[in-house]
């Protein structure tokens, strides 16, 4: 069975550093994805020479655009970290989106309860509540998998749908709304909004939360007993049981951590970007985070880079739609194409290297 997300690429006799090979694979798949995008643009009657420069200008054209790009990368970092934690243990959760939504719901409840009055705790406590909400939503599939053998991919996908209907229900029946016809709540109290970092930009303290989470996850994965348990569990659950690793406990803990990161993402989205509950909260950061994590080969530092690139695609695509008329959903297509190209490229490189090892 292929375990390509786990193993480092095979080392080569004449010692090309594995990191360099990985980088080459990633660059190659980006270029392949870009090439297919160009073909797609031509096939649908747009001029790549108009569209691609607009995409770039929209993402990095000025200070404001760059700030927007960084701000859009923040939620992706968190969902991608959540994905990395789960996938390293070969627990294939697709429930990031649902956990994010439930996190946002908990955050909203906590922010309303505190009423924006207790200084920095007015947003710190709701952030914690969001993490809790995501973690709780994440425990359900873990428990079902560990106890009843329920496939976590299917259960997490179904839970995503349930979470979105939960959000719709909460907005329609539970939230305070000045305009009953719109499917959006009133804003949370001003004291709960995340403090901005640079005036007139969407950058807020969420950036530090994301960077902090990345360093904590990186340290824990590389240097702690839990990080080791995680990898052991992923590579061979049976053997890890003989080593005394409790599979039920490990599964639950991994989903707790992964869910908490997604819940935190939902909390940041609510308090930092939207300030109110609406269907915009479930805007696809969960699925994009999965692709980001895979392109980063489940490496927390790589996640930062890949998330920045995806943030740039999201921001740039808005400008591309305005300037060149290309639908902004092209960004999502590019992201999916890059994942597919990455899967094929990585495999091709692995096969070539393995062949050369045999020849030596």
């Amino acid at each position, binding site marked *: *069975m*292929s*375990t*390509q*997300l786990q193993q480092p690429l095979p080392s080569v006799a004449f010692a090309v550093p594995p990191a360099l090979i990985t980088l080459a694979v990633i660059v190659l798949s980006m270029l392949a994805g870009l090439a297919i995008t160009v073909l*797609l643009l031509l096939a*649908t*009657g747009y001029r790549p020479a108009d569209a691609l420069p607009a995409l770039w200008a929209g993402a990095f054209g000025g200070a404001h655009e760059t700030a927007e790009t960084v701000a859009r990368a923040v939620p992706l970092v968190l969902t991608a970290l959540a994905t990395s934690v789960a996938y390293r243990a070969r627990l*294939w959760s*697709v429930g990031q989106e649902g956990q994010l939504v439930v996190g946002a719901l908990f955050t909203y409840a906590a922010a309303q309860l505190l009423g924006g009055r207790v200084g920095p705790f007015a947003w710190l406590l709701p952030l914690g509540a969001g993490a809790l909400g995501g973690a709780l939503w994440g425990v359900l599939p873990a428990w*079902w998998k560990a106890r*009843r*053998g*329920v*496939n976590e*991919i*299917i*259960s997490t*996908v*179904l*839970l995503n*749908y*349930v979470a979105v*209907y*939960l959000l*719709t*229900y909460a907005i*329609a*029946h539970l939230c305070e709304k000045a305009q009953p016809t719109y499917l959006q709540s009133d804003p949370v109290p001003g004291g709960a909004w995340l403090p901005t970092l640079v005036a007139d930009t969407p950058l807020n303290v969420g950036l530090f939360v994301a960077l902090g989470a990345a360093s904590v996850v990186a340290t824990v994965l590389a240097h702690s007993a839990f990080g080791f348990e995680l990898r052991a569990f992923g590579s061979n659950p049976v053997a890890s049981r003989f080593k005394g690793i409790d599979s039920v406990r490990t599964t639950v803990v991994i989903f707790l951590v992964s869910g908490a990161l997604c819940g935190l993402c939902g909390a940041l989205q609510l308090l930092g970007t939207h300030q109110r509950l609406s269907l915009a909260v479930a805007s696809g950061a969960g*699925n994009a985070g*999965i*692709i980001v994590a*895979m392109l980063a080969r489940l490496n927390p530092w790589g996640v930062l880079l890949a998330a920045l690139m995806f943030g740039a695609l999201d921001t740039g695509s808005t400008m591309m739609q305005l300037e060149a*008329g290309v*639908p902004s*959903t*092209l960004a*999502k*297509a590019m*992201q*999916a*194409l890059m*994942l*597919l190209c990455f*899967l*094929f490229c990585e*495999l091709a490189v692995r096969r070539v290297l393995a062949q050369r090892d045999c020849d030596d």
Partner: protein
Amino acid sequence: MTDLMQGALVASVLAAAIRLLTPILIAAIGELVSERSGVMNLGVDGTMLSGCFVGFIVAFATGSAAAAIAAAVLTGMLLGLLTALAVVTLRIEQFVVGLAVNLLCSALTAYAFRTFLQVVPSERAYVTPLAPLRIPVLADLPLVGPALFQQTALTYLAYVLVPLVAFWLHRTHAGLQLRCLGENPKLVDMAGASVVRRRYAAIVFGGAMAGLAGASLSVGSSMRFVEEMTGGRGWLAIVVVVAANWKPARVPLVALVFAVLQAVQIQAQTTGSAVPYEVLLALPYVAALALMVVFRASSRMPAALGVAYVRD
């Protein structure tokens, strides 16, 4: 409420349920064949969505329902071929491939549809849906007659598909080989039969059925295409296979549970109900989760499901 009105209500819910059953049933039968061969194709939902879109576009361009359905099936087969190349030949993780296919299809259909709407104004972006075919005599049966026998051709196709696949799987030599493939591919290989070719065929068949299921959503019952039109029906089809314990004969029963839940929700939208609308919308997914938790997934699962075959 009088008996007559209740009867009419039941008949109308039942008719809607059979209409909604069609895509789930077709997709589930395709997925069942793929899974019995040992390949878990998680790209069903995306493939269905592509079938929906391509069917809609071809129906719009040519006005021919037959061409639309053929194009949707072809799209499903191509996506099946891509999946087969990735999971059988290249042995990439099946789950990752399925996920990539879903994301790609969801993004590409949204992109292509918006491109289409830039050319065609949205008030003209509709097609003529398939007309129901009335089967004489049978359609006159009380209560169930119109529900079962006044449907589109695709529904009748779904009716015959189940016994055909069941017969093929359990009563033919090729079906036996396919089932063996899911349990122990080495045996098939040692008998001199090609594992690769059979798995390719099974996945492509599953893709074709998912494409057909998609066409039954867009051309079969609706006049329009909407982004994310499948609403997770592909995933429900996968749950149907698990809850039916990989047995074709049980597939229609489980699929009917989901279809009835969806039909009740649509009925409640028009007649109103005490239960909030959002709860009814979530019901099929909650029911799917309950089915997954109650039925132990391990019981009759093909032993080699999800495992790439490597000749050693």
